[in-house]
């Protein structure tokens, strides 16, 4: 469970203090998938880093699993807009990086890493190097890296923003599958997913948090009642369109 309460963040830039985020309060339940949507520069990425403990909030409180976040929180999976794989390592060794950085024995995680790569269709690419993979495949590998230590919490910062539309839709389905959408809900990870794509947010999330331009505040929280598992056909339903419109209006009203 993630709790944000009155979170604000102001940083010093060369031109003076910049208020990135103001008075943000929301909760993310265990196993819940929450999407943050907003115009670029609205502080949604900053908010994600605050939750991870990578940047300090300048006001308000953040807690994860009942513990106040004051420094980087342990056991969280992070996926960024760029795959940021180590160019000098084979894909399998890239996926094993979190184990090494945490001081765990990488060989204990080998078979799990191989399983994860198979799960996302990269089973035959374990020994390849990042430059031999397409952007979408690299991002799949980076998702495996985030999942290696089986973190209960996934923080994703526009992970599919750099991919073409077709690959992006494919990756959305893949993510939901990996997340365990088909199951009963037990064992699902808590996900906070930053995006600037409304359809992506609606397709993936249980709730969509709509943010205003800088300083980023919450304009609306839209619950997405679409049944799971969601499929390609979900995008064609009237409900999907209605929700997208609602979020679009909330975004434009806030701008």
């Amino acid at each position, binding site marked *: 469970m993630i709790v944000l309460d009155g979170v604000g963040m102001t940083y010093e830039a060369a031109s003076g203090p910049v208020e990135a985020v103001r008075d943000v309060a929301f909760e993310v339940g265990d196993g819940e998938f929450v999407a943050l949507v907003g115009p670029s520069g609205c502080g949604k990425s900053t908010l994600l*880093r605050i939750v*991870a403990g*990578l940047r300090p909030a300048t006001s308000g409180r953040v807690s994860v699993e009942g513990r106040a976040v004051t420094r*980087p*929180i*342990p056991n*969280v999976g*992070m996926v*960024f807009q*760029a795959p*940021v794989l*180590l*160019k*000098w390592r084979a894909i399998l060794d890239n996926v094993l*990086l*979190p184990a*090494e*950085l*945490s*001081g765990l024995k990488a060989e204990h995680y080998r078979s799990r890493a191989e399983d994860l790569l198979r799960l996302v269709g990269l089973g035959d690419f374990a020994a390849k*190097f*990042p*430059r031999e993979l397409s952007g979408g495949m690299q991002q799949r590998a980076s998702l495996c890296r985030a999942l290696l230590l089986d973190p209960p919490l996934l923080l994703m910062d526009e992970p599919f923003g750099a991919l073409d539309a077709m690959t992006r839709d494919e990756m959305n389905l893949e993510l939901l599958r990996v997340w365990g959408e088909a199951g009963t809900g037990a064992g699902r990870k808590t996900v906070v997913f930053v995006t600037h794509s409304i359809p992506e947010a609606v397709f993936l999330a249980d709730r969509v948090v709509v943010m205003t331009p800088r300083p980023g505040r919450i304009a609306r929280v839209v619950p997405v009642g679409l049944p799971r598992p969601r499929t390609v056909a979900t995008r064609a339903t009237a409900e999907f369109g209605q929700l997208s419109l609602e979020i679009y209006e909330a975004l434009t009203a806030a701008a």
Partner: protein
Amino acid sequence: MLPGVLRRYAPSAVLFAVVLVAWQLAGPVFQLREYLLPGPVAVVRAALNFSIPWHEHIWITTLEILGGFAVAGVAGVLLGVAIAWSPTLARALVPFLVFVNTLPKVAVAPLFLLWLGYGIVPNMLIAALIGFFPVVINTAVGLTQVDDELLDLGRVFGAPTWKVFLKIRLPNALPYVLSALKITATAAVVGAIVGEFVASQAGLGTVIVNAQTNLNTPVAFAALVWISVIGLLLYGAVGLVARWWAPWADTT
């Protein structure tokens, strides 16, 4: 396969051949004396005339170049690491290193000889002094130009600084260091010859100085040929090592 190779190398081979023929013909056509411009045939004859102890000179100069290259590489990487590691060290070292780098090495060479005497060591140090700076800069840049997200991963997984350094920063810097070493390879050749010009009893630079005094120009040209052979071999070797060790980077 063959047409591709031809297309790639034919232009430079043709140019090379044209220059050689023009050079060979220039002597008789313009009635130039051999001490002014010896033709390529005379130069090759001198280069392969082993009554001149070429192997000794080549050995000495190669030692100076390799020694200077090694010292520049090791010192450059260490200084680069120090600069990237600590901002305080960076503030202390960088202005000093820039000052040292702007010194004209030709002018410093006599001082080295004064302090260290004749021999291989001062020439090695001059070679190192000319070649170390790009290694320092590229090492420091390669160590610091790391994606912020990778450093975030390091923090999320609680990796100690040394581990991030070893697993992320150092391999990230490798292609930068290797491409700096290509520059150092050519700079070390210049440094060794500069040292030999100032004062030396052996080496290809010494051969040039002596040949000049005797107006034995073919021998001076021959020494030049040997120097460029050493330089090209070292440059090529560094290039090969770079391609094998850091195949993910395009160092050209």
